[in-house]
């Protein structure tokens, strides 16, 4: 006889995540910005840009924004708007890839450690402490140097930094959920441990993880731009917001649009993920409402 045991979480049926998010101001603005960013990135990825992002038009070098070039051109006569779109695509790929990896690895480590407990937990968490003792950027720098610059190594570097953070975020709720009666009940029913963990414990730890994903994406975007700025991320002539900003140094006096547009793009992208994260936290985790907003 199948027995279904509901976890002690209030399931707000009939009220999806989206409507609730849209009633939240941070959530709405964040969602709008992120949607815009995703669309721009998607177009960039598919190559649907006003002009080819690598096309050089020598006679149109350093043109200010105009009808022909919405955001002006750079020192090689390349269209800034098109390059920004390609940059969005690159940073989006790095961000999604790295955060997906970190979320999977971190959640696996954190929930397993928290659920199994004891020495195993202790060992895994001490290993995570080692990663915490190094500043994030230094760690990322090291990984990128080992792997060589490029899109995938940037993504991997960000994943290495974020895995321990996800492990901690995922572990904490597991510690309290595993002591709850419904978990004991599932165990009494003789369910295998792996199934208890995956089907009954994990779903109850999702709220803080989802919030963390959104915040991690903002940091991933920043780090991709930062590493590219230092010349270790996306390699020219490929466009990246960090590379574009770095290239604007020294000639921004002549052509301020070279600096303004990538700068605004980075800020709006980071802001979008952050606000979405705040909104998600308010909606998913009402206990934390009002904090840090």
């Amino acid at each position, binding site marked *: 006889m199948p027995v279904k045991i509901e976890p002690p979480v209030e399931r707000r049926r009939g009220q999806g995540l989206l409507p609730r998010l849209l009633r939240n101001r941070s959530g709405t603005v964040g969602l709008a910005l992120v949607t815009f960013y995703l669309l721009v990135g998607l177009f960039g990825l598919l190559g649907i840009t006003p002009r080819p992002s690598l096309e050089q038009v020598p006679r149109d070098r350093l043109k200010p924004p105009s009808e022909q070039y919405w955001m002006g051109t750079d020192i090689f006569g390349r269209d800034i708007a098109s390059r920004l779109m390609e940059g969005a695509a690159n940073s989006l790929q790095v961000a999604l890839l790295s955060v997906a990896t970190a979320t999977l690895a971190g959640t696996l480590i954190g929930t397993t450690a928290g659920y199994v407990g004891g020495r195993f937990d202790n060992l895994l968490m*001490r290993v995570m402490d080692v990663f915490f003792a190094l500043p994030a950027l230094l760690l990322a720098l*090291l990984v990128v140097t080992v792997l060589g610059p490029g899109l995938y190594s940037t993504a991997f570097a960000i994943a290495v930094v974020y895995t321990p953070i996800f492990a901690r975020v995922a572990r904490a709720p597991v510690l309290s959920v595993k002591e709850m009666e419904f978990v004991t009940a599932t165990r009494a029913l003789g369910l295998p441990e792996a199934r208890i963990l995956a089907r009954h414990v994990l779903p109850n730890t999702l709220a803080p993880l989802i919030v963390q994903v959104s915040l991690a994406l903002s940091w991933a975007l920043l780090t991709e*731009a930062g590493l590219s700025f230092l010349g270790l991320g996306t390699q020219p002539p490929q466009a990246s917001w960090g590379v574009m900003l770095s290239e604007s140094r020294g000639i*921004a006096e002549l052509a*301020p649009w070279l600096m303004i547009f990538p700068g605004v793009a*980075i800020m709006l992208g980071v802001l979008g993920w952050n606000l979405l994260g705040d909104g998600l936290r308010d909606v998913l985790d009402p206990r934390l409402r009002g904090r840090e907003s």
Partner: protein
Amino acid sequence: MIRYLAQRFIAFVPILLGVSILIFLAIRLVPGNAIIAMLGTEAGMLTENQRRALEAYFGLDKPIVEQYFVWLGNAVQGNLGLSVRHGAPVLDVILARFPITLQLSVMAMTIALLIGLPLGVLSAVRHNSIIDLFGRLFALVGLAMPNFLLGTLIIFVLSVYFHILPNSGDYVSFAEDPSRNLQQMIFPAITLGFAFSASVMRTTRSAMLEVLGQDYIRTARSKGLREFVVNRRHALKNALIPVITIAGVELGYLLGGTVIVEEIFSLPGLGRLVFNAISQRDYALVQGIALFIAVNFVIINLAVDLLYTAVDPRISYASKN
């Protein structure tokens, strides 16, 4: 108290060992050979014997495990080895650069606290007012503005509108010429302090909001204390713990994470040192810096924990018998 400190120091050991092993392995995974990296194109003129002799001199000819234990044995005696690139002991190279990064970080933290604390308190006390709105906007911009963008922007504004270049390459220490040193350091410090002040502001505001909703604040008000006294003595003091935590964490990150700002403003600090050392495969130097930064980080964490007891007498690390 002493027992607590001893326990904490013992807990550091595995973390630092872990950091050293991690860095040791990582840096050896970097493609390329340290000797060839050191000599550049001239490496081609080395005979096989000369290369071997150089490797033996820097201890690079032994198996990795042996290299690690030799390094560890020396490290615990304060000898972090020789920098291939600088031809000097690693610790000397680090200590020559560290004051710059330390000064920069402390200046950034001071700026952050001077802006972030008052703004956070005001935002919370005047909850949902114009001031609060401004404070929250400030925090959002601070959060979204990466330091390489702000730094680039500051240099742009200074050079175009004020015709100054904050740094033309030659760094002057505070002891040599305090006013020139401060001129060189203030803009990088503002660059770092801006984002820092945003997180201090957010933390202060949320902690104050939480404390202001407590019963004892109502009690303090109802017994007729002035608002200022309530806010300062009763609320702020209790809201400081999370602020100290975030300031400590941020300071710890700054001490090892000023790479980009040091690059932009051409300051020869620890950040640029490690950036160059990594790309030049200066194994000993990278290891030394990583260990140095990790030690800083754990010491700051400990200092933060000790500060708690000063702010909140209820927290005590004295052993209870």
